[in-house]
Structures are given as C-alpha cells and as structure tokens.
C-alpha cells in the first residue's frame, strides 16, 4: 500500500477530492435515510390485517333517500338477509369502517369514567353478530354478540353499548396483565360503560398513517349498525367463489331496492384492492425514495468515473513514469483503487455523521423512527463498493498506459 504518497498527491488535487468526498457523504446521508424509510414502508405494507383477505370484499351502498333512519335500518336488515342467502356467500355484515379503509371512527378509550387523560386510542367498528365470522377473525377469549344485543344507532347519537368486543392488542394495552375480559371500559363518545365480552385475535384498525402507529391494532367492535348516509357491507365469499359472489351481491342488493348508489368504479372492492389503496402513499413514498437513491448513486458513480477518467488523462505521463520506474499494471490499478478508497473513506465518515444528523432532525420534525446504525454501516459498505466499482474502468485504462509514455513530450 502506498497510502502516504497517495495522500500527499491528493493534497494537490484538493478541489476534485473534496467534491467527490462531499458527493459521497451526501449520497450516503440521503440514501441511508431513504433506504430506512423504504424498509419502514415495506414493513408497514406487509402488516397483517387479521381478516380473511382472500375471500373478503366490500360493497359501499349510498342511500338515495337519507331522510328516514328507520327505513335505512330496515333496508340494511333486508339487504343482509339477501346477501347471506347467496350460495357464493359465506357471511355478510354491515360495518361503518373496516381494517385498512383509511377513514372511520376512532375514539379515546379510558378505564375510569372521570379519567382526564386517555388510556389509548382505538378504531370503533359498528357492526353486528356476523362481524367476526365475516371478517374471518377468531375470538381468543369470551363470546360473540348475540342477535338480541345487536342494535342500531345514528351517527349523532351517543353510543350505548353495554357489551363490546375488543382486539387482543387493545386488551393488552388496557390490561397488560391479560385480564381485560369482563372488565369495563369507557369509550369517550359513549355515555355508558361497556363490558368487554370478547377478545379477538389480531384485528387491524382502519387508520394506516404513521401517526396511528401505536394504535394500529386497537379495535373495538360495537354491536350496532350505524344508520348513516351510506353503509359498507363486508361480504365473505365461500372459498374459491369470490368472483361469483362479487357478481351476485350487487344484483341481490339492487333486487332488494334500487334506491341506492353503488359506484361502478369502486363501489365493490376486493380486499386486495382495499390493501392496494390503503398503502398507495407508502408504496409511492418507497418508490420515490428508491428512485432518489438510485439517481443519487448513479450520479455519484458517474462523478467518480468522470473525475477518475479526467485524472487518468491528466496523469498519463506520470503513470508512464511510474511504469518506467517499475510499477506493474496491478500497482497502477491499486494506486487508483486506493486513492478512491481513501476519498471514499473520507466521504463516508462525513456521510455517516450527516445520515444520523438528518435522521435526528426528521425524528424531531416528523413521525419517524430512529435510524438503525445497521443502515449506516450497510450504506458505508455500499458506497465504498460503488466507488471501487466506478473507479475500476478508468483505473484499468490507467493500468494499460504504456511505460513508453514517460519518454513522450507533453
């Protein structure tokens, strides 16, 4: 290794050296954070919803006549009977919102009626005794609602739910010792206490944004169909009959009443489409970050290739002299690889500090997790390998400069 003379020579090419080192530093800082964001988004997109996504689809029915809640209630009950009677349908349930929808109701949950600060936040799903079977979510403790417990309420009514079923994550959040079943909880918008009669396995909330991270699996099932301007019907098809059920269900609803609107574009959606739509922003962000990273890496590689090619051209005579003095082709190759490695090391040292600095700033400004040092380490290795790869072609060209160049006049 000829580190000392290479460092000595680099002092005479400060501008180019510093520029490339800074480019490497900035690229490392941005790419580390970008890859971290990508990984977080991918992790988020891969989270389980806890429902039978393969066989589940959703119908949104907007009522043409919204004036009479009682008629809406009756229509919903008739619709559900029609849906459940379809041969391709396993079960169906009304619901105001559902996992991954993105919009819906969430409310503070308290353990005492006079509690000022919430214990946690949770999605509130209004449905009936068919909800669990339709979602494909298993009860891990307690019991399901009975038909007699399932009522109806308007959106502006105060919630009266004597019984609720909650997700296991919410149960654990409220009672970390595992004793939530049979306990009383208070949903802020409710005036009466609610007893936990059942606990479900994993059930994701409707919200997917990063702010909702801590509450992503908090869900309360309330036994009441919400008499709103519209409703969602969750329909679980029999295995292998999703397409048939998706064809049959709207027909069955229109056969019940044509006083409704089911959007031809997204009025009926498979759960795969729901998932696709829910994580669109995350996917977009991941793709954007990947593009930014790829462009930055390409620019940095091109910068290294360009500068090294320029240096090789500029130092042809010097390379010839070195060859004349006994340097082998490998010596010349190693010279440029080592030179690049030294610049790269300088760059990644600054870049690592920058990467952590940017992350600390983002953590303070946005809903961001702390950057794992593994990303910085991986980024350092990647940038150094990229540098060595980029410098290889011009370095190989340099190694083929003939020693006779030493005798040529410039």
């Amino acid at each position, binding site marked *: 290794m000829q580190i000392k003379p290479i460092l000595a*020579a680099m002092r005479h090419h400060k501008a180019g050296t510093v520029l490339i080192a800074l480019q490497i530093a900035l690229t490392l800082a941005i790419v580390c954070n970008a890859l971290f964001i990508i990984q977080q988004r991918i992790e988020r997109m891969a989270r389980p919803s806890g429902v039978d996504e393969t066989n589940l689809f959703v119908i949104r029915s907007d009522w043409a006549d919204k004036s009479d809640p009682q008629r809406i209630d009756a229509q919903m009950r008739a619709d559900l009977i029609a849906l459940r009677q379809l041969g391709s349908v396993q079960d169906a349930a009304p619901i105001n919102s559902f996992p991954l929808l993105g919009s819906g109701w969430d409310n503070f949950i308290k353990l005492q009626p006079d509690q000022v600060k919430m214990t946690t936040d949770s999605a509130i799903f209004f449905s009936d005794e068919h909800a669990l079977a339709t979602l494909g979510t298993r009860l891990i403790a307690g019991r399901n609602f009975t038909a007699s417990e399932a009522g109806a309420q308007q959106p502006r009514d105060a919630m009266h739910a004597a019984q609720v079923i909650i997700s296991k994550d919410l149960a654990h959040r409220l009672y970390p010792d595992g004793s939530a079943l049979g306990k009383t909880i208070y949903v802020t918008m409710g005036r009466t206490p609610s007893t936990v009669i059942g606990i479900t396995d994993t059930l994701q909330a409707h919200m997917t944004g990063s702010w909702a991270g801590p509450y992503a699996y908090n869900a309360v099932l309330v036994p009441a169909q919400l008499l709103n301007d519209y409703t969602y019907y969750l329909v679980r098809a029999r295995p292998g009959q999703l397409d048939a059920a998706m064809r049959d269900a709207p027909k069955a609803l229109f056969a019940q009443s044509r006083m409704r609107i089911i959007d031809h574009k997204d009025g009926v959606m498979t759960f795969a489409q729901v998932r696709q739509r829910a994580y669109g922003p995350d996917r977009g962000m991941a793709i954007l970050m990947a593009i930014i990273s790829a462009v930055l890496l390409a620019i940095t590689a091109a910068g290294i290739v360009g500068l090294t090619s320029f240096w090789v051209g500029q130092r042809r005579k010097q390379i010839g002299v070195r060859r004349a003095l*006994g340097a*082998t082709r490998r010596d010349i190759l190693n010279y440029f690889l080592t030179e690049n490695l030294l610049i790269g090391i300088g760059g990644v040292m600054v870049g690592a500090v920058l990467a952590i600095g940017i992350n600390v700033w983002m953590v303070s400004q946005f809903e961001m997790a702390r950057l794992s040092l593994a990303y910085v380490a991986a980024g350092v290795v990647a940038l150094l390998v990229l540098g060595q790869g980029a410098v290889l072609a011009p370095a190989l060209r340099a190694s083929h400069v003939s*020693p006779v160049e030493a005798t040529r*006049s410039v």
Partner: protein
Amino acid sequence: MLKMTHLSKVYRTEVVETYALRDFNIDVKEGEFVAVTGPSGSGKTTFLTIAGLLETFSGGEYHLDGIEVSNLNDNARSKIRNEKIGFIFQAFNLIPDLNVFDNIEVPLRYRGMKAAERKQRIMESLERVGLASRAKHYPAELSGGQQQRVAIARALAGSPRLLLADEPTGNLDTQMARSVLELLEDIHREGATIVMVTHDPELAARAQRNVHIIDGQVVELSEDPRFHPAQVAAGEVRG
C-alpha cells in the same frame, strides 16, 4: 551488459510499415559509458525505450545483464526495469505532486523495500547529488539542474546495473548541463554502466565510446553524410 543482435522495431499501419530500428546491433560492456548519437528521427529514442524495456521490439535478440528479454511478460519487464535499470529523462519526469524524498522513494516502494532501508538509500543518493537539504521540496521549487539531480538520485537509489539517460542535459543551460554531466562522469568512475542518448557531439565526446545511429542502424560516424571531418573538428554539426 546490454547486447542487441539483429534487432528490429517496426511500426505498422494499414498501409505502411516503418522501420524505426533495422538489423540493429550493439554491445555495451559492464562499466562502459556509451553515448548514442544520431540525427533527429534516426532511432535513438526508440533504441533507448527498447533498451529500457519501455517498449517491445519486433525481431532479433536483446540480452540485458545476461537475460534474453524478448519473451518476458509485463510483470517481469517491470521487475527488471525496477531492479536493474535507472532512467534519467530529458524532461526529468519527476512527479509534481510528490516532494523530492517521495519522488525518489517511488521505485523503491515498487520494489517492496522496507521503510528504513528506503530512507537510508534516499538520503544517501540525495547526498550523492548534493541535494540532501532539499528532501522536502517539491519539484516546482527547484531549478532545472536541481530537478535533474533529483532524477539522477532517483535512478541511483535503486542501485541499478544500467543507467539509461535520454538527453539528460537537453533542458538545461550550459552551466547546469556541465554540472550534471560531471555528476554522470563521477557515477561512471564509480563503476556504473551508462548509456546516454544525445544529439550533442560535445556531450558525446565526454563518453568512453560513441555509437552513431542513422535510419535505425548503427553506423560509423564517417558514414553519416551530414558529418565531415572538417565540420566535426570545427564543432559546426548539431544533430
């Protein structure tokens, strides 16, 4: 030490073949100081580059220090250049980014020499050329004569078997040229084999033996139509 037999060097293009050296024969004994002269384009530099293993040749044989070099690969040629040959170039060819010490160190590093030995050899060779106090200076901070002395120190530091000098005083004024030449003569007196290419008859006259090249072949000086005894005596001829 250096023996070329029927050596030829041909530069080929699609349409023409140009012989830079043709049936070239030379035999330089160990300890000799030989000046190779000839007009511009005669093949002097080509001879030097082949002698110094900077270039390959097209035909014939070349023995350097007893080794037939025509079949050596690039690494072996580099090793011989590094260990057996010292180069002194007309343009000095010091590396401008490195100081005097580091410049002289370049060939020693390629030899894989230990740092302590490198330092000792560098300081000895700098003292030999009278520039020990300039070790930390950069080439741009030295005069032309001093730069050439550094180049000679660099050539000497590796204790080469053969010194090849290409117009070593070509870029120097008269006084500096004289001092560099005296240095070369001192080095020769200490036993070094020196082959010096020059077109300066005055310089060539200081060597033990002159070899004259015309059109890529070694000839007797009298065969050069430009040279006539009267002109040579009057010092009128310049290559």
